[in-house]
């Protein structure tokens, strides 16, 4: 054969990342303790190197379809892969110092992190049930282990165990749904086959079985994005896991769940929106409301952000649930979800980076221990305020635009149900502002503890992470066009 069997250019990001992950494992064996600090640099280099073919693929601007349409590199895949690589790069910056000081198994830590990122790259391109399932497993199994990386800490053990057990059960339910759908459709695995079956056949009874399988499949992904009522693992896991891993879970792993939802809902089940739309409508409303109401009561900053990230996932779900007049899915609703995810990723990573920096001093993430932070760490207090304002959707931050785009896409669709969605989202934004601003008040207006008021030293890599995230949050406020264009570029409809 003259031509290559596989389009290596399309697979290059995945291949590079696999290579670097395995390289780290081997390299770690041969270096002494004094050279271990180079590991995060190799990992970060791997992520940047995987980004290069992403750029060249983006410039070539053609949709590449491999394995008979089971693996597709299109605008959606490229934008999402970009978000994943960017987020993981920042998580690496956040981990470098943390992992070194904690004296964890460093080589294995970075290997597992890169494996999870690899899973995220695969899930962005997966266009059939088998690839989707394997990819979500590749995202999950390293993160189950990373959540328990602080071995001697009971909370970390609890975090890993809860995440693992509930994750396995929910993905098993998804898999059961997939197997039923496989049987009902007569062996369809690719999303295009499933979609054409669904728009053609639906003669009452076979559709009844398919409808059940759609709901079952959605369960596993609702778990991954921590949508209520599949959120019970999230607060405990976020609290117990090492902080950089928490940041990774709340951003990258959650986005991976959304990627699964996007491709399933928009590519495999678009013809059956009357089945999944009520489900997602209920999920969106419950997720926003329950997440925010419980967040108010939290005294632990990480638990508060855990509930806040549950609520934020609810906002991303809102455009899915919006019913358009034509009854079909529009590029506008799709783009507003992706834009929200992108901006949420940036601001939430920023908030976690500041928490890691401050926790190096306070050794606690209780909100009370943050009182008077502005007295001895004014820079960190201001940046934390900036990220919290963004999460609340208050200018001058990108978070404002994220909320506006979602609002606009729902309201422009019109109708009573959409109006109700927008109203619930509005009320929730007000509730959310309350608890975000309570932390700001604590940092600026409450007295600082008596003992040591020296400035907090921030390691360079962590400072870089905070700086990059703050910069992007501000730039996207000034020119939101970039985020919107990425959102539309990713659109699957």
């Amino acid at each position, binding site marked *: 054969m003259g031509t290559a069997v596989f389009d290596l250019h399309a697979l290059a990001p995945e291949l590079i990342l696999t290579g670097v992950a395995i390289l780290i494992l081997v390299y770690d064996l041969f270096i002494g303790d004094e050279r271990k600090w180079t590991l995060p640099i190799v990992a970060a280099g791997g992520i940047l190197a995987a980004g290069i073919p992403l750029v060249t693929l983006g410039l070539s601007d053609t949709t590449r379809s491999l394995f008979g349409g089971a693996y597709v590199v299109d605008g959606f895949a490229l934008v999402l892969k970009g978000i994943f690589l960017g987020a993981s790069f920042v998580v690496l910056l956040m981990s470098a110092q943390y992992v070194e000081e904690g004296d964890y198994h460093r080589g294995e830590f970075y290997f597992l992190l890169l*494996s999870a990122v690899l899973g995220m790259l695969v899930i962005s391109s997966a266009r059939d049930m088998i690839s989707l399932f394997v990819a979500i497993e590749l995202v999950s199994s390293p993160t189950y282990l990373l959540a328990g990386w602080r071995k001697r800490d009971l909370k970390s053990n609890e975090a890993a165990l809860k995440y693992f057990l509930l994750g396995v059960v929910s993905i098993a339910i998804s898999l059961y749904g997939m197997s039923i759908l496989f049987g009902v459709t007569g062996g369809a695995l690719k999303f295009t086959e499933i979609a054409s079956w669904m728009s053609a056949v639906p003669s009452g*009874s*076979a559709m009844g079985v398919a409808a059940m399988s759609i709901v079952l499949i959605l369960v596993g992904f609702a778990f991954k994005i921590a949508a209520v009522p599949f959120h019970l693992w999230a607060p405990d896991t976020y609290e117990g896991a090492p902080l950089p891993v928490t940041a990774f879970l709340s951003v990258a792993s959650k986005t991976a769940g959304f990627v699964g939802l996007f491709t399933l809902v928009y590519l495999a089940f678009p013809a059956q929106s009357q089945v999944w739309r009520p489900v997602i409508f209920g999920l969106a409303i419950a997720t926003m409301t329950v997440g925010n109401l419980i967040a108010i009561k939290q005294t632990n900053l990480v638990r508060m952000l855990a509930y806040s990230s549950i609520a934020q996932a609810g906002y991303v779900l809102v455009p899915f649930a919006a019913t358009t007049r034509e009854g079909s899915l529009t590029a506008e609703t799709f783009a507003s979800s992706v834009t929200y995810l992108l901006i949420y990723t940036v601001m939430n990573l920023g908030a976690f980076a500041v928490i890691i920096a401050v926790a190096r001093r306070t050794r606690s993430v209780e909100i009370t221990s943050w009182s008077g932070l502005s007295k001895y760490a004014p820079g960190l207090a201001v940046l934390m305020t900036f990220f919290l304002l963004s999460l609340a959707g208050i200018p001058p931050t990108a978070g404002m635009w994220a909320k506006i785009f979602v609002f606009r896409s729902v309201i422009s669709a019109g109708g009573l149900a959409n109006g109700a969605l927008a109203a619930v989202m509005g009320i929730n934004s007000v509730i959310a502002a309350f608890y975000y601003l309570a932390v700001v008040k604590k940092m600026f207006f409450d007295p600082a503890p008596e003992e040591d008021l020296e400035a907090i030293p921030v390691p360079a890599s962590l400072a870089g992470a905070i700086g990059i995230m703050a910069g992007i949050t501000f730039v996207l406020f000034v020119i939101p066009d970039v985020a919107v264009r990425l959102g539309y570029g990713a659109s699957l409809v």
Partner: protein
Amino acid sequence: MSNQQVVQVIIFGIAAALIIFGGIRVVTAQNIVRAALYLVLTLAATAGLFVLLLAEFIAAVQILIYVGAVVVILLFGIMLTRAPIGLTPDLDNESARIWGLVAGLVFLGVVTFVLWRHFASVPALELSAPDSGANEALGRSLLVDWVAPFEAVSMVLLSALIGALAMARKD
């Protein structure tokens, strides 16, 4: 029904009964070693289903890997970690058991209802008769059409292995 179909249904019934019995015993057995042995029963009966589906190769792999390797590793794991073998009453939670039972029965009820009502109208999948090329087709399918998820699975296993080692290692 032809005679052949009757035999198939009977064998399916036996295998399914063994799988369900084994599955229930895995979660109800008080002793974890016994639970592992009931798992052998479930996995072996599953291999029987593969034979019924004309997939002898997968049936053989199921026996070799799951019964032969996975359960043995499981038993080694129980032995080597010095986890308490036997009853662990302080880990039992009576009220959780009731809620678990309720949730399980509701799930079973919904799924049974939907399948019972609707599955008759679902067209049966045609099975092609096995020929000498079945394994070749399987290999082609795994390593050409589905090579991306196949390789991704190897990364799942590698990361699980490495992570488990790091977790279990004394330091």
